[in-house]
């Protein structure tokens, strides 16, 4: 309850300093022709810092701000990274999506902080999920996940993530109301959730977008485990082991039945196929090696010429320009967002499950992106939350961050600290 020791002033300074140091790195090591190339970027980053800090501090009071500060720090870094890929400029589109993501974060925070209300609205969540599924089937192109409106592309399936996470977090009250169905004691909610997951699974398979499937599977898996581990779950160890074995068998079966392009990625030796299926990963690994610990310098990267350099292999692009150390640091910042609810504990079981599902989605997405692009696991086209370019992904990441924030307990000031402050004020008076 009393772990949040950073004051508003100190943490504001920290965020400003982080961005200032990064911009100084761009100034001294960056690839720009004229110093005015940096002007727009510098103004935009500091403007966002100032406006957000003021809004948070004076117009929108909360019980805890740590997630906001961390998120703002990550967003600023992300804008700087994206603006420097290949040459110094200003990634205006990415900047706008970052601002919108921050707004989404606050909206989702307001929507989900009251778990009683969310539990009451859970039938509408299924409705929203149904609408998103129908939108994907009816409005996107043939077997595609994208809706194109002019120059704007939206991926409705991305927005299924926060809805599905909320579905996973709800229904906990139903755990006491289980009925035996063939072998297991299950609740109606659990059956509904499984059907929802199955529909998403079929949709992703049909659209040949198997990259996002593990993120949904991770959230669903967490929800299942939560229910299995519920004190009155009536699950025996034997049933648990049977379920795990069945799960593994199912994954193996799906891997063997996966489409040819997936099979190729599962079995490719990238160094034997450096200009074919292994091209992106080889280039990504070479870029990391070339960047080494301190990077070539912002704007000096060559990986930007490779497809998906600012999305699917963005970790390597950052490594190349900023160095391995900075890339690891930014990933640590994103991971810290997930660690915060471990410090400010979740207030309810709903929030604990929600935080866990969000963590599962973020961890799987980051893992698939980073480990996939570095050839530790098969390569899939998913994004790193907040870092990769992509409107839908960024907005959804903002929403999920809002859920992380709402999952935390309010932070109170220490009673003795309050007393000390009042004494100081008295003395000063």
């Amino acid at each position, binding site marked *: 309850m009393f772990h949040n020791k950073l004051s508003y002033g100190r943490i504001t300074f920290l965020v400003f300093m982080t961005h200032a140091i990064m911009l100084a790195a761009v100034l001294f090591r960056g690839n720009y022709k004229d110093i005015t190339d940096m002007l727009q970027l510098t103004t935009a980053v500091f403007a966002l810092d100032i406006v957000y800090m003021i809004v948070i501090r004076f117009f929108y009071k909360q019980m805890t701000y740590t997630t906001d500060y961390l998120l703002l720090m990550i967003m600023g870094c992300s804008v700087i990274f994206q603006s420097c890929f290949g040459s110094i400029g200003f990634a205006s589109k990415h900047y706008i999506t970052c601002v919108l993501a921050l707004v989404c974060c606050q909206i989702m925070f307001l929507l989900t902080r009251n778990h009683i209300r969310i539990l009451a609205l859970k039938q509408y969540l299924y409705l929203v999920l149904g609408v998103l599924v129908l939108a994907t089937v009816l409005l996107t192109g043939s077997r595609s996940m994208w809706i194109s409106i002019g120059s704007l592309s939206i991926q409705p399936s991305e927005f299924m993530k926060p809805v599905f996470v909320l579905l996973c977090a709800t229904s906990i009250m139903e755990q006491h109301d289980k009925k035996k169905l063939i072998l297991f004691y299950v609740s109606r909610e659990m059956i509904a959730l499984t059907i929802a997951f199955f529909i998403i699974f079929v949709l992703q398979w049909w659209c040949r977008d198997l990259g996002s499937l593990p993120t949904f599977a991770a959230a669903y898996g*967490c929800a299942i485990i*939560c229910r299995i581990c519920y004190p009155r779950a009536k699950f025996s160890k034997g049933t648990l082991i049977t379920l795990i074995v069945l799960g593994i068998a199912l994954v193996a079966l799906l891997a063997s039945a996966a489409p040819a392009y997936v099979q190729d990625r599962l079995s490719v030796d990238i160094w034997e196929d450096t200009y074919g299926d292994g091209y992106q990963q080889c280039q990504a690994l*070479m870029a990391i090696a070339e960047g080494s610990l301190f990077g070539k310098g912002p704007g000096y990267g060559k990986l930007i010429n490779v497809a998906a350099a600012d999305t699917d292999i963005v970790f390597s692009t950052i490594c190349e320009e900023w160095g391995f150390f900075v890339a690891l640091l930014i990933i640590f910042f994103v991971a810290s967002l997930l660690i915060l609810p471990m410090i400010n504990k979740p207030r309810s079981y709903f929030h604990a499950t929600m935080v*866990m599902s969000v963590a599962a989605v973020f961890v799987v997405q*980051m893992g698939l992106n980073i480990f996939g692009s570095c050839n530790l696991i098969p390569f899939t086209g998913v994004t790193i939350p907040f870092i990769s370019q992509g409107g839908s992904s960024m907005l959804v990441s903002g929403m999920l961050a809002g859920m992380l924030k709402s999952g935390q307990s309010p932070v109170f000031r220490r009673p003795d600290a309050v007393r000390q402050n009042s004494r100081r004020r008295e003395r000063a008076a």
Partner: protein
Amino acid sequence: MKKKEDMKCIKRGEFLTKLLIAIFLIGMCVLVFKIVTEASFYMKHSNHVTLGCVYDRSGDVLFDPDADTDTYSYDHFVDVGNLIGDDSGMMTNTLVSENRTLLSNYNPIFGIMEHGQSAIYTTLDHEANRTVYDAFGSRDGTAIAYNYKTGEIYVCVSKPNVNVLDFEDVDSLPSGSLICKAFYRTVPGSTQKVSTLAAAIEQMGFETVSNKTYSCEGVYYNNYGNEIDCHSSYGHGSQDIFRAFQNSCNPYFAQLVQDMQLQPLKDTFRNMGYSVNNSKAPELDIDGISVFRGSTELDDVNDFDTQWGCMGQSKTEVSPCQLMMWQSAVANCSNSVTKPYLISYVKNVFGNEKDESETSYESAGFSAETAAYVREVMLENGRVKYNDKIGYNIGAKSGTAQIQDGASENNLLVGFVDDSSFPIAFCVVIEDNAGGYLSTEYITSTMLNAIANE
């Protein structure tokens, strides 16, 4: 009660979240380890890293990534082109292609350093190499020489070669230009009789072998009635091993093989590094350059092919480098072969030197006593046939290898200089030299003189 259950569930949820984050962080640790340990490997594939130069033992440049005809004479690198290679990626199994990590101006911490000082300093003598290359004239072939005490390779020439300053179209190059033939398979001809002699002494003892005399009438019919021709149609008459070795008498060696037991013969050849009847031969590489050792088929000591294989024909193949290496054991009267090396020392990106020269040995496959006896026979052969022509006291064995079913003949000479102050072992191969247009003695003499004049 319900509140307690809820707290329990929250803690379990928390535990699972921590577990997820921990798994991810462990994955990140694995990634860091992978990148740190494999970064140099990734850089081998990178086109953005600059390479340093390769130098000979006196500092003359053998490879320069920025080389052009303005800074070097047109044929400056022509004698070492297929040995040292270039950075085009079209040549493999060369010093540059196999040592890009050492040559890269790359540091795992500071990354690509455009003005790094990475360099490789070799044991080669460029001037001697060039002299030997020129001595081949219009003939193709290979010549390799090294210090049989330390392992330093001084000369390694292969013709035809490739001029890295004027090299664009691979198809327009003569066959064999892109490989250094000293490291690849060739038919050894009668130089194989050195190995056969070593195997015979291993099996029977030198006394038995030296007491054996066989008759040569120009043609010999073996136990199965197959005809073994001698290059002298008049025959050499009755001879002992010294005379037979000097005469390179095929009937003598056919009879010697016939008197040997098959299994010990195969064992000795395997121990020497041969792949016998498709068995796996131990791998050999010189500073990353893969070298063929030898292969033969031995099925029956009375059989024509086995006998002929022991005389360096039939299916027997050996690399000139391996032929030279056995000479080190013979010259040193040792049961060990001195392993050759090309890299003397290297400089890293910061210019710090690291000594890479280390004399190492491997088993010769025969005993020191056998080596001493073979040395005696080879020195006698050198005294009688080569010392005057070459100008050095050498132990040697010549060979004539019939290739393409006898349509062409290669001439070979392997040996060593019997001088502890000039301990050189060598192997020379002149291709398609049936008319004796160019003598192996001339190439050897030129090579030894060039090394001595360093």
